[in-house]
């Protein structure tokens, strides 16, 4: 693909992947309304800056990266600053220590986990989304799993 993306191509990603974007945003922001707002803002931002897309990776990866930035902006704007709280799924007693352990992960590790497991992205797309090298993704995911295993000895990879 050449320089720039069309609104139609962005819409195609939106229509095919909306549930995945929403799920990652819910995980990243811990709030349903903020997550919905973040996804809308992500695609609006993608449209506004569509001519900045240079076709160096996949369009979807570029939009994932936008979502990561929008979520980061949202967290910065939300005061008072709080640790990211993962949604409770309506069962507060379920996995409280696991939820705390995931929330305590460094941001990049947490996002890599979410993108891998909730969006089913491959390492290449995660690398684009997080703005890191492909090899860094593998190391980041490994570190996240290790961290969870150390915190929660019963977790297996």
């Amino acid at each position, binding site marked *: 693909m050449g320089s720039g993306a*069309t*609104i*139609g*191509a962005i*819409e*195609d990603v*939106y*229509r095919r992947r*909306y*549930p995945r974007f*929403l*799920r990652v945003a*819910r*995980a990243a922001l811990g709030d349903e*309304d*903020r997550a*919905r*707002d973040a*996804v*809308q*803002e992500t*695609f*609006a*931002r993608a*449209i*506004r800056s569509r001519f900045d897309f240079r076709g160096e990776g996949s369009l979807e990866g570029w939009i994932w990266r936008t979502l990561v930035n929008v979520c980061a*902006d949202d967290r*910065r*704007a*939300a*005061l*008072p600053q709080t640790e990211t709280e*993962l*949604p409770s*799924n309506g069962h507060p007693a*379920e*996995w409280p220590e*696991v*939820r705390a352990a*995931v929330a305590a992960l460094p941001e990049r590790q947490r996002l890599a*986990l*979410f993108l891998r*497991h*909730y969006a089913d992205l491959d390492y290449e797309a995660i690398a684009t989304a997080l703005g890191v090298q492909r090899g860094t993704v593998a190391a980041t995911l490994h570190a996240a*799993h290790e961290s*969870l295993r150390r915190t*929660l000895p*019963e*977790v*297996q*990879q």
Partner: protein
Amino acid sequence: MIDVQQVLESLVPERGAEFGDWDEVLARAGVGRAEPAAPPKAPRRGVIAALVVVAAIAVPALVAAVLSRTNVIFSDSKPAPNVVKKQFADLGFGSPPRFALGVQAAKAREVGTFTIHGRRRSVWVAPTSHGGFCTLFEAGFGGCAARASDRHILNVNYEEGSPRGTWVSAVGGWVITRAARARLELAYADGSSDELPYIHVSPPIAAGFFWFDVPKGHSDKRSRAVALYVKDGTGRTLATQRFAYEPRRPIHVGPMPKAPAYVPRALPARSDVPPSAPIQRGIGDGVSLTAGANGVVLFDTTRIDADAAALLGSSVGYSCFKLVHEFGIFDARGLGFGGRLAPTVALRIFGLPHPWDGCEIQGSYGHLWPDRNGSHSPVEIALTDKGRRYFADRAAARDLALFVRTAKMQRIRKLTGSALVRGLAPYPIVRLASSDASPPLGKIGYAPSADGVTFVERSPTGRRFVVEVRSRRIVRKNLEPYAFVF
């Protein structure tokens, strides 16, 4: 053993198919449906009927949302003019540090226009360094949600349409909600309502702004505005502002009671906190001054000149100022306190960045032309050369302003020809050969023209102040910020 995948599935479980709201994305992005979308996949036959039903319900709601909300990208908006940026810079001036608004005036932008008091006018917005914003409605009001913690859903200012406050004639303010289809609804006592348009501005502002001139048909008790609601796309109320019409007692006009004698308050003689380095010192008209970088300033009037003390009387104003050039506009930013003249006074002035250019003590007497002290304040203490020039320029500008705006001169300056010359004859001013000429120092000059007159005065610094009257109106003046004419 627990599997990571299992853990994550449990934390944020997958939901059924969701479609989002693409039209709302387009509205946010500020684009219409100009470019064709990618070819849609053929829907399964079973869901076609359901989609048709959803569309029938969703389309009217979408149209309403799009009509009432205009999305604006802050960074793409037109920068505010310098005079407006200066107004933003002046907001919150003088606040103690912990209350400082942190307005980023240089980033102010015009985000849209509204009909305000019957005319199309602008609304400007500037972000703050605390994650909030300030706004100015042209010919309306201004306000701030300077901190993220100030970001309440609805902030409303309103104007009353009558002196008795019997109806609301205009509402304006801002709305902050994440609900993409939020609506503003102004409800009237007769059960009707208006949906108010608003301009939603993208981050870092992330707020919607509105102004609405209430139609005159809603000016009586039975039909006046009673509440403003913020509602989400489902009609759920997110915030409410009600308009309370408290009965007001009519103002009784009778003989004025004799006012008690005014006693100026005593100001502190000493400060618990000493002036901090670097310290500025100055002396003027027998008053010595010490000003610290922490805003603590000490006035010592024990050796004040007798003439200055006589002019001042007992009720005075102590103030200090800094000369600034902001956005190409020159201004003297000053702050001070009023109180009783005392041998020593210690004040703390917040929000006036050091170094200062001067301080002064002003009396509470009225200023007539010619002024008793040559249009200077009784006590002027320059702390810099700029401050010294400012005092000289201000005296010349004030002298000219006081002359031009006297009640008699308001009439005379509207004359022309020989009537004008006759009207000005009794005054100790000099006639100039042309409006470009300058009078001697300390004198006001005037140059008649076919349809008016130009008044001129010079300052010892070389500055030349002018007030030009044509066809009975002031068409040119350069006295601000030193003085004002009208």
